[in-house]
Every structure is written in C-alpha cells, then in structure tokens.
C-alpha cells in the first residue's frame, strides 16, 4: 500500500491525484464506521454527524486563526467529545440497537436542518460566518505546522491523506488485536456474557464510539481541506446513506471491506455523476436493497466464506 502510494503521483495527472486524495479521505470515514459498527456492533446511522462536525470545526477554526494545525486537532477533538457525550446518554441509558440507529440518524439530520438555517450575519463564530445552506467557501487549506504561509501542494496533501489512511488502518488493526479490541469483539458477540465475566460493556462501547467519532472527524477535516469548502450537505441523508452503503457493500467485521466498498461506490458515484444517465440515489437505493436482501454479509466476508469452503490443497494439513 505504501509503495503504491509513493508511486502514484508520478503516474497520475493532477485531476486524478485530487480524485485519489478524496477517495482516501472517504476511506478513512468508511473505516470509522467499519470499526464502530462492524467490530463494536454499534448501529450508528449518523456517522456523518461526526464527519460534518469535524469539517465544520476545521473550517471555523481555520478561518478564525488563519492557521490549520490547531484547526486539524480540533476537527478530531470536537467530534470525539460530542460522540462521548452522545454515547454517554445512549449507552448508559441502555438504549437498544434499533433506537441507537434511529437516534444517531436523527442527530445528523437535525444538524443538517440546523446548519441549513444558519444563513445571515447573526450566525458567526468569531470571524467565521456559517452561511447556512450556501456553505463556507475559500477555507484556508492545510499548512506546514507553525508556518501559515507555507501551504501544502496537491502532491503533499495526497501523501498526507494516504499517510493518515495507513495510520488509521494499522492503528485499528493494532487496537483490535489488543486486550481492549478483543473485548470489543466479544461484546459484539454477547454482551451479557461479557458483563458476567466482569467487563464494563457501557464503557467499552463508549470508547469505541468516541474513537470512531474522532476518526470520522479527521476524515471531515481532510474533506473540508480538499475542496476548501464545507456545506450542510456533510450532514445530509445522502452523505450518511453513503457511509452505510460502503460498509454494507464491503462487509461487516473486516477493515478491508469498508475500504473496498467505499472505493467501488465512490467510483460509481463519480461515473454516474458525470453521465447523468440515471439518478445516483436511485442506483444507490437499488444497490442498498440488493445487498440487504441478497448479500447481507457484504463482499469481503462472502468471498472469504467461499474461499473457506473451496478445497484449497495448500491449506490442508492432516493432523494424523
């Protein structure tokens, strides 16, 4: 992965590089839900709330300070803290799965409505005007820490986003292999048994949810930086649906799955967007339904199951 990443800017043109940068940022977002839902078993339908909060936190801070380092840090912290707060109410109130899904979805939709109605001079944070549905244009992009004048060029941004993707991917792998991670998976399998073994289920879920919120915020920061623009659409139903579809298509319980799902669907969305043959929502709705009804486990786990059933001669070890 790292080798490919380093080689890419040499062979791809500027437009392709920008495309790949945004794809990578979205993969980080996909990973955040793949972790929270696929491993933590937390049905979060509102991952875009944290993504959007990250984007707005970056936008507002960057405009106010004219420097991106603090903005990027806040873009991770603000959604993480918000996730912790929301998570506290949900997990310590012992809301069931379905309620959790609906509440998180409602939260992001209310953010959407809220941000849409912040047009006008009254809605500003310091120098930063929120601008309602028009969004915040011309945001300062990422600069070298401590040197606001030295902005990152597209190639550097690409490297940076790829580096974050690798760090998040590897970091989640390490986390899942740790004691904490294995307890998280055990909670997904059977909450009651975990409690009977003495593990605090609520606390573990809260931590997973908070980490997921922070990662989604990072993706939001990279997204806002990529277009130097953020609008309430980061909270929209379409946005939050997309994240769910990535994970469903790719498969729950893997980290590669959401990345693959994200890449396939992003590619599809880009292609559909340019040719206007059929409405994107229509196609997405059909894919969504098809996967839930026909391939409920998603691509990666289904392929793995196929692979496990097929007689692979190199994997057969006779114990005798």
């Amino acid at each position: 992965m790292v080798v490919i990443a380093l080689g890419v800017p040499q062979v791809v043109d500027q437009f392709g590089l920008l495309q790949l940068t945004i794809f990578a940022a979205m993969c980080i977002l996909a990973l955040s839900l793949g972790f929270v839902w696929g491993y933590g078993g937390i049905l979060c339908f509102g991952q875009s709330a944290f993504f959007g909060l990250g984007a707005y936190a970056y936008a507002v801070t960057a405009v106010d300070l004219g420097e991106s380092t603090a903005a990027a840090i806040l873009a991770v912290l603000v959604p993480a803290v918000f996730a912790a707060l929301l998570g506290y109410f949900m997990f310590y109130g012992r809301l069931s799965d379905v309620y959790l899904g609906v509440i998180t979805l409602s939260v992001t939709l209310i953010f959407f409505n809220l941000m849409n109605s912040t047009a006008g001079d009254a809605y500003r944070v310091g120098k930063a005007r929120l601008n309602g549905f028009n969004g915040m244009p011309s945001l300062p992009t990422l600069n070298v820490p401590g040197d606001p004048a030295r902005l990152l060029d597209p190639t550097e941004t690409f490297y940076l986003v790829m580096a974050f993707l690798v760090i998040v991917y590897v970091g989640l792998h390490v986390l899942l292999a740790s004691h904490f991670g294995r307890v998280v998976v055990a909670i997904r399998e059977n909450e009651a048994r975990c409690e009977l073994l003495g593990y605090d289920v609520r606390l573990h879920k809260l931590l997973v949810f908070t980490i997921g919120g922070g990662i989604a915020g990072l993706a939001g920061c990279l997204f806002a930086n990529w277009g130097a623009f953020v609008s309430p659409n980061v909270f929209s139903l379409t946005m939050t649906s997309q994240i769910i579809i990535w994970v469903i298509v790719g498969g729950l319980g893997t980290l590669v799955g959401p990345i693959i799902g994200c890449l396939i669907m992003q590619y599809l969305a880009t292609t559909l967007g340019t040719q206007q043959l059929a409405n994107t929502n229509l196609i997405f709705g059909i894919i969504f339904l098809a996967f839930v009804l026909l391939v409920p486990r998603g691509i990666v786990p289904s392929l793995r199951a196929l692979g496990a059933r097929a007689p692979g001669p190199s994997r057969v070890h006779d114990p005798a």
Partner: protein
Amino acid sequence: MDLAAVLTFEILNGVATLVLISVGLAIIFGMMRVINLAHGEFLMLGGYAAIVATNHGVNIWVAMVVVAPLVVGVVGVIAERLIIRVLYGRMIDTLLATWGLSLFFIGIVTTIFGNTVAGIGAPLGSLGVGRYSISLYRLVLIGIAAAILAVIFVALRQTRLGLIARGTMENPNMAAALGVSPPRVYATTFGVGAALTGLAGGLLAPISGVLPTVGAAYVAKAFITVISGGTAILAGTAAASSLFGSVNQLLTYFTTPVIGEAGLLAAAILLLRVLPHGITGKLFKGSL
C-alpha cells in the same frame, strides 16, 4: 391576551404537525416493532400525489384527503409484500432495507419530477386575532390531527379489526394460536400506517411545498417523537408530540428556529436517558 392566544395557537400547531407526521410511523412501530426509515419518503410521496392530482383538476381537498393516502397506502402494502415480509424478525435488516427503499423513492421521484420545489396554494384564508393573524388552514390541521387520534382510538376500541390489532400487538403467537393470521394483520397495519403518512404528506404540501428530499426535513422529528413516545400508539404519540411540540415552538418563538430544533433534540436525548423505553414504556403502561 392576543399574544397568549397566538402563542397557544402556535403550540397547538406544532403539536398537530408532530402528530400528523409521526402517527403513521407510530402505528407501524407499535404493532410490528418495525421502524420504517422510508417514512419521510412516504410523506414526500403523499405530497406529490396531492399536488399532481390537484394540477390535474381534482379538488384540492379530495387530492389531500383521498388521493394522497390511497396512493401511499398502496405503495405501503406493496413494500410490505416485497421487502418487509421477507425480513420479518430481522429488525436491523428491516431498518436497512427501508433505508434502501427511501433512497430508491428519492431517486425515482427526482427522475420524474426533477429536483425542484413543487407546491400548491393553501386553501382558506386567514383570521385576524387583534394585531396578529393566523392561518385558517393551520387551524383546520389542528382539528384534523385531533380527529385522526380520535378515529384511531375508536377504531382500536370498538371495532373487530381493532380488537384483532390490539391482541396481535400484545402477543402475536397467542393470537395465531386462536386463528388470527399475523401476516395479514401486519400487511393491513403497514398499509394503514402508510396511508396515514400519505395523508399527512398531502395535508402539509400546501404549507411547506414538496421536493424529492423533503422527507429529511420531517423524518428526524417523527423518529424522535415515536421513539420517545414508546410502544403505546396513541398515548405515546400524543404525549411525545405535546412535549416536543411545545418545547420546539416556545423556543422558536422566543429565540430562533435553530435553537427550537436543537432544544427538541436535547429534550429527547435527556428523556431517553431517563426513560430508555420511551414515555409509555414506564408511565401509562398498557394504554393504547
């Protein structure tokens, strides 16, 4: 005095809107424990049905009160047959499938009508209250919301179908052991819930206009109302609508709509922290 009257009207209006947009969802949730994520799109379809019918010369009242619920009711029955029934007992898959359905509806309506706002003029005029004026049509909506709750109450209490519905809701297996067919009850429930949602969509079309993504504007409030209400269809909807409608309208009146929305959400999250099964999960147990 005028202010008090207008404020009361605003609050009743907020409550009535919540009742209208959430009662269909509440029926489906209360009876089947299914949360229909395409609920917002059912509202949207109701709006389009009313507008298209009106533009084709149908009387606006007939379009809103007859055509919209009929169209959406049929859509609901078809959706139950093709999707919900297949996933019966798999709650999360049902949620996801209805989400797919929601995108599908948005897509298909956008393809047909385009991504622009359609609307019809609100019938009736307005009424002067001292220095203020209130819309007669909104006054009628308050009446309709109250009437819907009353009709549901009577239907559940007094009719044979209502008895079967209440029995199946309490214990579907025992109802089946007595010869009641739960699949048929569920199909009917989903149809009735969808039809009421279509009715709400039709009635709200003159006020807010319709566009393919209008569902998102309503649906969060509807979910919050139903979940906070708990499983009792009538008591839950009425209690949660009254609470959130008042919070929302009062905050909106004295501050801004933004704070009104945020206040509604905060009130719901606080409420669910205290009562995880909703208002009727603990209080008013066993009510309709």
